[in-house]
C-alpha cells in the first residue's frame, strides 16, 4: 500500500535514503541541499536508520568517504549543491572510473561567481562528462522515485556506474507537495541486496585504485564508456519494473502533446510544469505545440530524441545553464547533434533561461513558442543562441 504524505523535495530524498537503508551517508552542509543530511541525521538520532552518518569537513571528503564505503561493499550516498558539487569534481571521476555505484542527490543551484544560492543547472551540467548517470526530476515525487531507482541502475552488473539525481533547488527542494511513498518493505524488496563481485572487506584482499600506464588506461576508459552506453537498457528495465510496482511510468524523456506537434520545447526539471501550462493554453487555441521533458541526460537518449523530433518543424532547447562555448548550452548542443542524421531536420534554437534563480514565467515560455512560429515562418532559425528573461535582451 502506498503511503500518502506531504513532503518537500529534500525531505522526500532523505526519506528515500532512509528506506534504502544506506550503510554510510557522508555529507557536508550547503544550501539548498543541507536539509537532506539534516533530516537524515534526525532518522539516525532517533534510531530509525542503520546508517553511519559521517558529518565530514568538506564535500571532497564526503565523496571520498562514499567511494571507500562502496568499495567496502556497502551502500553510500551524499547530497550536495553548486560549489559543493564543484569541490567533489575530482572524485566524481574517481567514482565512475573505479566503477563504484555511489548515489548522489544534487539539489541544483548556480555556481559562483557571483555567489548566488538559487536554482539553475550549472552545477550538474558541468559534471555531465564525469561518467555519472544523470536523472532529472520535475517534482518531489520524481526526486523520490529517481533516488530509489538509482540504486538498481547504479548497481546493475552491466552498469556499475554512479548516479546523480537532480532536482531544482528551493523550487522543488523546499516546496511541500503531496507525494506517494512506498512502504519500507517494498523499497527493500525493489532494491534487493547489494552483492558486488568484490569488496575490500570480503575476506580475500583486493587492491583498488591502481596507477594505469598507457598500456591499460585506454581500455578501462573504453569499458566505462561502454557501460554508460549500455546503461540505457538497464534504465528502461528498471523504470518498467518500478512502473509495475507504483503505477508511475517513466521513460528516458516524457513526451507531452507531441503526437502531431510542429513546434516543441525541450526542457528539464521544474520548469517543465510551467511549459506544460503554456502548452495547454496554446493547444486550446489550436496550435500544434508540444514538450519533451528530459529525465535521463546521461546517457544521452540520442536515437530516441531524434525519432521524437523527426516530424517537428522547429525546436527550442531550454538550457538552465550556459556552457560559455558561445554556441549554446549543454542540452542544446547534444540535441542538435542528435538531429544531424535525420533526413528532415527540424530547425533548432537554444534559449538560456532562469540563471541564478531568475523566475521562469508563463510569458517567457510564450515568447519561446512565438519565436518558434517565426522560425517556422521564416524557414530558417536565425540567431540560434538566445536568452530569455534577462534584462536588456
Amino acid at each position, binding site marked *: 500500500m502506498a503511503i500518502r504524505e506531504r513532503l518537500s523535495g529534500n525531505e522526500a530524498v532523505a526519506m528515500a535514503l532512509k528506506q534504502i537503508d544506506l*550503510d554510510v551517508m557522508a555529507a557536508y552542509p550547503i544550501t539548498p541541499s543541507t536539509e537532506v543530511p539534516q533530516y537524515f541525521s534526525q532518522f539516525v538520532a532517533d534510531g530509525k536508520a542503520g546508517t553511519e552518518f559521517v558529518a565530514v569537513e568538506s564535500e571532497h571528503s564526503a565523496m*571520498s568517504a562514499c567511494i571507500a564505503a562502496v568499495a567496502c*561493499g556497502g551502500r553510500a550516498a551524499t547530497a550536495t549543491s553548486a560549489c559543493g558539487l564543484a569541490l567533489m569534481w575530482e572524485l566524481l571521476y574517481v567514482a565512475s572510473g573505479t566503477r563504484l555505484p555511489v548515489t548522489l542527490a544534487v539539489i541544483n543551484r548556480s555556481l559562483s561567481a557571483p555567489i548566488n544560492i538559487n536554482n539553475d543547472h550549472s552545477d550538474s551540467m558541468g559534471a555531465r562528462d564525469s561518467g555519472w548517470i544523470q536523472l532529472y526530476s520535475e517534482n518531489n515525487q520524481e526526486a523520490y522515485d529517481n533516488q530509489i531507482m538509482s540504486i538498481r541502475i547504479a548497481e546493475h552488473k552491466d552498469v556499475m556506474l554512479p548516479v546523480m539525481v537532480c532536482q531544482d533547488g528551493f523550487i522543488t527542494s523546499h516546496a511541500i507537495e503531496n507525494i506517494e511513498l512506498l512502504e519500507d518493505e517494498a523499497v527493500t524488496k525493489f532494491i534487493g541486496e547489494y552483492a558486488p563481485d568484490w569488496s575490500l572487506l570480503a575476506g580475500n*584482499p583486493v587492491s*583498488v585504485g591502481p596507477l594505469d600506464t598507457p598500456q591499460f588506461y585506454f581500455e578501462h576508459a573504453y569499458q566505462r564508456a561502454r557501460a554508460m552506453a549500455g546503461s540505457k537498457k538497464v534504465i528502461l528495465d528498471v523504470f518498467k519494473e518500478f512502473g509495475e510496482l507504483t503505477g508511475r511510468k517513466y521513460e528516458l524523456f516524457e513526451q507531452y502533446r507531441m503526437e502531431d506537434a510542429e513546434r516543441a520545447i525541450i526542457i528539464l526539471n521544474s520548469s517543465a510544469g510551467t511549459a506544460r501550462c503554456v502548452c495547454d493554453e496554446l493547444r486550446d487555441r489550436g496550435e500544434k505545440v508540444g514538450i519533451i521533458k528530459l529525465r535521463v541526460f546521461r546517457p544521452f537518449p540520442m536515437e530516441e530524441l531524434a525519432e521524437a523530433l523527426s516530424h517537428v518543424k522547429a525546436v527550442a532547447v531550454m538550457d538552465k545553464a550556459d556552457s560559455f562555448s558561445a554556441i549554446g548550452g549543454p542540452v542544446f548542443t547534444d540535441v542538435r547533434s542528435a538531429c544531424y542524421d535525420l533526413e528532415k531536420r527540424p530547425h533548432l534554437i537554444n534559449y538560456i533561461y532562469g540563471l541564478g534563480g531568475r523566475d521562469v514565467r508563463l510569458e517567457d515560455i510564450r515568447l519561446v513558442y512565438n519565436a518558434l512560429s517565426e522560425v517556422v515562418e521564416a524557414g530558417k532559425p536565425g540567431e540560434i543562441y538566445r536568452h530569455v528573461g534577462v534584462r536588456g535582451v
Partner: protein
Amino acid sequence: MAYNLKKEATKPERFVGGHRLCAGCGAGVAVRGVLRALEEGDRSCCGVATCCLEVSSFLYPFTAWQESFIHSAFENVAATVAGAEACYTAMKKKGKIKDTYKFIAFAGDGGTYDIGFQSLSGAIERGHDMVYVCYDNEAYMNTGIQRSSSTPKFAEVSTAPVGSILPGKMQRKKNLTEAIVAHDIPYAAQTTFMSNFKDLHEKAHKAIYTTGPAFLNVLAPCPRGWRYEPEDLMEICKLAVDTCVWPLYEVVEGEWRLTYEPKKKLPIEDYLKPQGRFSHMFAKGAEWMIEDAQKYIDKKWEQLLKKCK
C-alpha cells in the same frame, strides 16, 4: 612478550617485494614495519594517498599489497579510510562482516602536512577508529623533490633552489606531530627506523590497537631528494635522532613521553653533512646557517623535554 626482530621478520609479509620503490627509500620500510605490528588473524584495509608509495606499489595489474588496499586521490586518504571504517562499523552491526579489520592510512608529507591536512584533521576530530601513518621524506618526491611545509629550513629542493641570493628553503619545517596532538587524539607518536625497529613496531602496535584515531609520523628518508647513498638509510635515521632533529616521542591521551634520549646529543653538522641537500651549508661563509639550524634544534629539544617531564 618481549619484542624480537628475528621473530617479527619471520611473519608472513603483508607488503611484498617486487614494487618499484627506489633502493634506500624509507616508504616501503615504514609500511612493512607498521603492518608487521598487526596481530595474527587480524586483517587490515589500507588506504594510500597518491604518492611515490602508491604509484610504485600498485601498477595495474600488479600489486605489492597482501592486505586490502584502496587509493583514490592525493588529498583525501584520511576521508577515504574514514569512509571505509564507517562502512565496516555499519556492516558489522548488521552482521554482514565477521572478520576483524584494522584501518590504516599512509601518505607522504605532501599528502599530510599540506594538501591532505584538512581531511586528516576532520577524520581525527570525528574519532574514526583508524591509524594515519605519514612517511615523512620532507618534500614532494613523487613529482620531483619540490618544497613542502615539511621541508626543513635551508634544504635545497627544486622549488626552493639555492641561488645567488637565496639559500634554499627560507622557512622552518611545520611541526605537524604537535598540531595533531592539539586535536586531543588518543595516540600520536614520532618514530623512524632505529637498529632493530623496536620503536617503530611498538608505536605501530599501540596505534593500531588504540580505540579511536591514532597518528604516526615516521621520518622516512629519500635517497634521491636528500642525496645520500642508498645503503646509508639507517645511518641517516639514527643521526636524525641522535642530533635531536627528529626526536622520538609519543603522546598518549595528552601525556608526553620521550621514548629515546641520545646518550650524547650530536652536533647538527653530523646529520647535515652526509646529505647533498644541505651541502651549500658547508660552503665558506655559510657558517651562519649551521648556527641558525643548531640554535633552532636546541630550542625545540628543550621545549620537548619540558613537555615530556
